């Protein structure tokens, strides 16, 4: 599937900002399952410099520093990419989950850091008993790991209510457990807590989701949103995407931006300002499918 993604973030400040340091995880991952064809990042006011590097998770990070006084800060991001369907293993043929939890410490060299490092609690993913119990209801003894994981993924939307404005960005998992509602990143954190508590390596994915318009209606520009889900390490296959918000295993409509232990490692944009007063922010995300050979669709 071919996509054009337009992600625009616009901040307005009641007082001038004299200096700002920002860090962005906005460049989509490019790998064997997702080919990045083009990418552009435009920032207003014109920053003194944008520098980038690859972080320890393999994500592309941009540093943006604005040194002139400004009351508006706009980050405009456009990418064009191709998402290939995953080659899913037969879920019932994957190894029992306990063997993965036990064996993870003995992975061959090189894979240790890749997978085992994602078994631990992290700032947004504490180990909580209810998360473990939730996971254990799907991870029955000797059950194939992917089968159990898919079961858990499908169960979460039934147990928790998706409510877009119910949580702030940094909702503790404990609170989500209590209120039984949240947004995509809350469900991702919740599921990660359960999986990791069982000793399974799992990581957080930040990205976009192409949303289909209601039948008969035109697709609304900017109506899409940033999204978050989970990847579980399945031996012999690698990182397997699971979306607990929608209860599905992502195929071609999920576009990956970055991976990390939790939201804190990969938040699309964070920054620190000198000045600024009160802030207003507007975000619009537009995921537009491109029909190959029909570039005029934009």
């Amino acid at each position, binding site marked *: 599937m071919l996509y054009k993604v337009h992600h625009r973030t616009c901040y307005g400040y009641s007082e001038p900002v004299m200096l700002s340091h*920002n860090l962005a995880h906005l460049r989509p991952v490019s790998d064997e399952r997702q080919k990045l064809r083009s990418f552009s990042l435009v920032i207003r006011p014109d920053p003194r410099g944008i520098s980038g590097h690859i972080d320890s998770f393999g994500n592309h990070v941009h*540093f943006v520093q604005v*040194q002139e006084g400004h009351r508006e800060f706009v980050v405009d991001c456009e990418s064009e990419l191709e998402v290939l369907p995953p080659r899913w293993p037969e879920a019932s043929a994957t190894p029992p989950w306990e063997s993965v939890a036990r064996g993870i410490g003995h992975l061959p060299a090189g894979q240790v850091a890749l997978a085992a*490092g994602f078994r631990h609690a992290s700032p947004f993913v504490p180990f909580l008993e209810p998360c473990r119990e939730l996971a254990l209801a799907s991870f029955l003894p000797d059950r194939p790991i992917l089968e159990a994981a898919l079961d858990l993924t499908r169960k979460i939307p039934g147990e928790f209510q998706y409510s877009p404005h119910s949580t702030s960005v940094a909702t503790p998992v404990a609170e989500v457990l209590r209120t039984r509602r949240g947004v995509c990143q809350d469900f991702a954190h919740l599921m990660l807590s359960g999986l990791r508590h069982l000793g399974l390596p799992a990581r957080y994915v930040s990205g976009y989701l192409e949303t289909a318009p209601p039948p008969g209606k035109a697709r609304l520009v900017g109506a899409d949103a940033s999204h978050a889900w989970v990847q579980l390490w399945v031996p012999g296959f690698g990182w397997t995407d699971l979306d607990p918000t929608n209860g599905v295993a992502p195929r071609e409509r999920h576009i990956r931006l970055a991976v990390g232990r939790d939201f804190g490692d990969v938040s699309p944009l*964070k920054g620190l*300002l000198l000045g600024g007063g009160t*802030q207003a922010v507007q975000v619009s995300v537009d995921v537009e499918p491109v029909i190959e050979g029909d570039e005029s669709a934009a």
Partner: protein
Amino acid sequence: MPGMIQTQSQSQNKSVADLVLQVRPLLGAMDEIRGPDGAPRPAWQTWLDQFRKMGPLELGTRWEEAKRILRDNGVSYNVYADPRGGDRPWQLDAIPQVIGEDEWKELSRSVVQRARTLEALLADVYGPQRVLSEGVLPESLVHANPGYLRPLQGVAPPGGQFLHMYGCELARSPDGSWLVLADRTQAPAGAGYLLENRIVLSRTFPEAYRACKVRRLAPDFLLLRQNLSRIAKRENPRAVLLTPGPFNETYFEHAYLARYLGYTLAEGGDLTVRDERVYLKTLAGLRQVDVILRRMDDDFCDPLELRGDSSLGIPGLVQAVRAGNVVVANTLGSGMAEGAALLPYVPELSRFLLGEEPLLRSVPSWWCGDPAGLAETIRNLGELVVKPSFPALRAEPVFGDRLGEQGRQILADRIRQAPDAWCAQSLVPLSSTVEWSGSHPRPRTMGLRVFVFRGPDGWSVVPGALVRTSAEPGRASISMQSTGGTKDLWVLSDQEVAGVTLLREGGRADGFRRGGIDIPSRVADNLYWLGRYAERAEGIARLSRAALSHVSGEAGPSDHREVGALMNLLRQLGILPPAPPTGRAGVEGAEHELVASIMLPSRAGGLQQTLHSLHQAGFQVRDRISNDTWRVLNLLGRELSISRRAVSSTVGEIISLLDHILLHLSALSGMSAENTTRGHGWRFLDIGHRLERTQFTVELALAALDGSRSERPALEGILETADVSITYRSRYLSSPELPHVLDLLLADETNPRSLLYQLLSLQDHLDQLPALSDSPHLRRDQRLVLERLGMLRLLDWPAFAAEPDGESSTQLREFLEATLDDVPRLSEALSGAWLSHSETINPLRRQI
């Protein structure tokens, strides 16, 4: 405790050495002072010889003096980080710990090997991670280690050097061998206390110090500094010591070390990153910083990439480090190597990374994340101390031998739930030394914190240690937070020791810049407010005292009018509420209201709050003000805390309290005039004084002018408040006349309290401040002062004297009111030009 049972008379006939040798060591522990045969160990011989000539009385007298030095130098450990009274005086023992040269050499070699091992570990973990791929270190000890900072993965520090200061906690097992209790690779504390201990002890017992030929500390500090300069990118690098601020428990030491090394003491807010370089915000603008010796935990150092909730750090610092533009010592991320959980793995790390057999053993330790370690820990829980795997987990150690069966069960369950987070250590009975209690010696458990510094030619161990003692027999947990004492460690030398003067030697700049220009804007800002609060407190105290003195004693009708006028003045100045409270009226009501305004700490703008703000401003710049100044601020604080208790004081008592406060305040301004030599910093302090006095004098003048319209002016009280009644009387030999009072208050430049004097001083200060631009024109602050000066000089005094109620009176009033309006404008212009760098940083609102 045995060994302590002695009567006073017995101990007085004996020498200190005799008494020390009589102390029975703690059970099961090695005796530091005597060998197995009961004879003193050879290393102690010289020290004991020296103290054979000294009795406990003389030791006591000398030690009182030492305690005074410690107190006066403000040596403290800020236990609860409370700005008011949280400082605990530093506990130093009169008896040093002594170690012979050969033993020290061997120990040094072992400790340096340990430093090299941990250095190699950091280089590997932040580099190729062979210790993980080869299975030498369990991955959890890296990935679940809060000290492992992922943003630093793959970042090579300048010169490839991770550690510059390494602290090693050592203690001695019953067989006399040294054991490592803990490694400190983050930002080891204690080196400054170590210096202070040495200075005090060598001053108090110069004969013993000389006779023992004690090795000097200073050379290693010089080497540390030389190396940091050498690996910095630029010639003549600028270095700062980064502190979390005055609320940190070891702030005293940060300020002390910064002075000792000649570094600017900087808080996170004093530094800013632009274009991947770090700058110090100084009065003269931004100045690039090349070296940051940090005393802040690394995860707090950059809220952009590390802990986002840190308000102490410098946004963008990690990026500057990545670009190689700044040396941070120790390197960000080096805290990874200091968890107690790593102890069992150090021997194997030494073999794997260095190819060397370890020379130094750790205290027997187990990590519960390892199944065998967990089993061993659970099995022997009663003989172990259980600790968190990493210091960032901030859990207290639990001593298994103090728990009952049930307690051990609970602990075991807790460990099993999160085995990675726990480790255990054997409870080895640590060696026993002797501490002087004030009248006699007593046995104490001992541990050392030894410091390894990196110099241009490699590692060296500072010949000395911060010795920690504990009253608890044999306990391994000897922390800075606990209430134990400290000792100096004397490393004996076989050769004559060159007479190095510590502070001189350490403080001489080798190419480092110093001087007033490098004053961070924050410091100037605090000094400015220190000046303003001091002056405001003085004004309030003077005015209140004047009013109270008319209330007390045999008050007549004229006094009543004075009181009324002074009360009005107090209201205009905002010291008293705008309207008198209903109820008591007249002089009695005034007395009641005055006493409340002085005694109630909650009264906004009142004396207590102003003095509190004064103390706070002083506290923030403790490293910039002299010890004497700080002591006066402390005395003021003490006056207050005493007065707060005495709610029902009499007018006489309150007047005498105000007398005391005024005396301290005048000592304070005297010191700022005579003892502060820090160029621009002092100017800001004095600008604060002058600006506040400008406001106060103008208010007084306005009150005098007002009074002339209604009742008899409170001129006596005003002269008294302005501290010029004697001048007036000697000059005019008559009761006060309005024009002459105002002339003295405003236009007499020989009067240091006159408006003219303040404006001239301000003009001079503003002209002397560093140029901010090449513009040949006056700045706004200079224009404001110049305008006031011109207007003041143009006032028509003869006309006013001839007709005090006429046209010229209106002119005068307009001038005074305009001047009053200009005070906040001037303050804003000043902060806009120089102090604006001290703004706080806000996070960008985050979006999902």
